[in-house]
């Protein structure tokens, strides 16, 4: 396997982007990525997207979007793993380059959610349709159950959850591409309207439009495109039981732990080696569960990490300096790629006010549904 580097990045703002269609979003992000690497061709394109079929009635978006990029003919396809579609696209592109199959590959992610009449219902198709969605559960509902199980097991409180949102908004306020680039207070969060007990509106990531793209090539060709490549040291992919009812411990995300173990092993690293992480905070409780499953904090200690500043900028292990899904936004398929872009900027020293000093090794964790899939990538500044 060859060493692989990221040599170009591009991303739209995330938010309610009424003027932009699915096609517009992709073309904008992809063009910016190509431009940033001064690249004029591509060998392959993999696009992460959860559900263009349900959101805008469009399937077969691999060829469609590459056509609109002016590159009809290029090898392309869509990959899907619900909210982990972006991470899966990155992994697919990584393997395409590492295997020697292609030399310049784009991994992109895009989602156009605001055209859809009922985003709640579309998102719920990532859960078990026959066992869970059938009974009227929603995504916030599934994570609310996970939250209650975590509260029962570890004593996590609603305030603990709320500190995650406060921290991520403080980071997002520094991110010009964020959907909600503004701070929120603890009171704001704890008084926001209840969505699925105990999760309130400000514990939940928003519905967003957006696209992001990165360019990958073999590390030994990176100089053709950039002075500051970022090496992808590892990729770990795992699945877990789909239905919450089938999980041994509802408060623990097995797929996250497994995907992380595979990545750490491949990279020859441990959690202690990670300087910063972008983690899948679709709901505040998800960040707490994920940092525990990733081994970044001890099991049971996740609840205090945001409150004490351990995972804040300036803390021991900054998590979601981008603002996370909560403040940055969560156009589902694009998130996994946006996480990679934040880490690239950090590892290149280009994160401005969000910069983590001395950041050399970063971890991105992207999760699908209520945790039935997870993909972890570890990046190193070169």
């Amino acid at each position, binding site marked *: 396997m060859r060493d692989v580097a990221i040599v170009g990045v591009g991303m739209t703002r995330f938010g309610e982007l009424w003027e932009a269609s699915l096609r517009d979003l992709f073309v904008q992000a992809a063009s910016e990525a190509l431009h940033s690497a001064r690249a004029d061709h591509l060998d392959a394109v993999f696009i992460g997207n959860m559900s263009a079929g349900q959101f805008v009635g469009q399937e077969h978006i691999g060829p469609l979007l590459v056509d609109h990029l002016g590159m009809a003919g290029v090898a392309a396809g869509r990959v899907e793993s619900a909210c982990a579609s972006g991470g899966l696209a990155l992994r697919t592109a990584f393997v395409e380059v590492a295997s020697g199959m292609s030399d310049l590959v784009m991994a992109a992610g895009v989602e156009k959610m605001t055209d859809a009449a*009922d985003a*709640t*219902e579309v998102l*719920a198709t990532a859960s078990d349709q*026959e*066992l*869970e*969605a*059938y*009974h*009227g*559960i*929603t995504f*916030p*509902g599934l994570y*609310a*159950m*996970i*939250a*209650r*199980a975590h509260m*029962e097991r570890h004593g996590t409180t609603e305030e603990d959850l709320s500190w995650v949102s406060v921290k991520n908004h403080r980071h997002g306020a520094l991110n010009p591409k964020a959907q909600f680039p503004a701070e929120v207070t603890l009171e704001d969060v704890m008084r926001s*309207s*209840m*969505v*699925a*007990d*105990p*999760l309130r509106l400000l514990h939940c990531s928003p519905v967003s439009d957006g696209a992001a793209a990165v360019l990958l090539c073999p590390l030994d060709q990176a100089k053709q495109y950039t002075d500051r490549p970022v090496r992808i040291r590892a990729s770990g992919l795992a699945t877990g*039981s789909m*239905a*919450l*009812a*089938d999980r041994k411990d*509802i408060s623990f995300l097995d797929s996250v732990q497994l995907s992380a173990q595979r990545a750490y092993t491949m990279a020859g690293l441990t959690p202690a080696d990670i300087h910063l992480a972008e983690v899948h905070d679709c709901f505040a409780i998800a960040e707490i569960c994920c940092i525990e499953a990733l081994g970044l904090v001890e099991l049971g200690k996740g609840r205090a990490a945001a409150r004490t500043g351990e995972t804040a900028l300036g803390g021991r292990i900054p998590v979601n300096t981008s603002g996370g899904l909560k403040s940055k936004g969560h156009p589902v398929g694009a998130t996994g790629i946006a996480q990679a872009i934040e880490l690239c900027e950090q590892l290149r020293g280009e994160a401005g006010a969000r910069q983590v000093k001395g950041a050399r090794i970063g971890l991105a964790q992207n999760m699908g549904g209520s945790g039935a899939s997870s993909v972890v990538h570890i990046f190193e500044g070169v």
Partner: protein
Amino acid sequence: MPSPRYWREVPNRFRLEATRCSACGKVNFPARAICPACRGTASEKVTLTREGMVVTSTVLYVAPNEFAMETPYAVAIVETPEGARLMAQLVDCDPADVKPGLPVALEFRLIRQEGHGGILCYGHKAVPAGV
């Protein structure tokens, strides 16, 4: 909800039919061709008892369109005496009273319907035991 997709699930939704793996004894609900615990393929039919205990739950205030008129409603994971777990709405009680360990009975209820013209979809919901 297309009719065939609904009709295929009648044995598990209407009668709580499950399977017990012949190799490891795990009760799988609904029936599985391959046991998720041991990958065994031989099993025998088992019908779940219509009672159980709440494992975890939530109360939904924002619901999908089809369920909008029912909010707020509680949904729980319930474990039956056979060790099988299932997701079900919890009704005929104050959602605030739903806690892990609450004993429940499973009752046959209308789960969803598609507007005024689609088929009616039935299944089981949980009510607090003794209510």
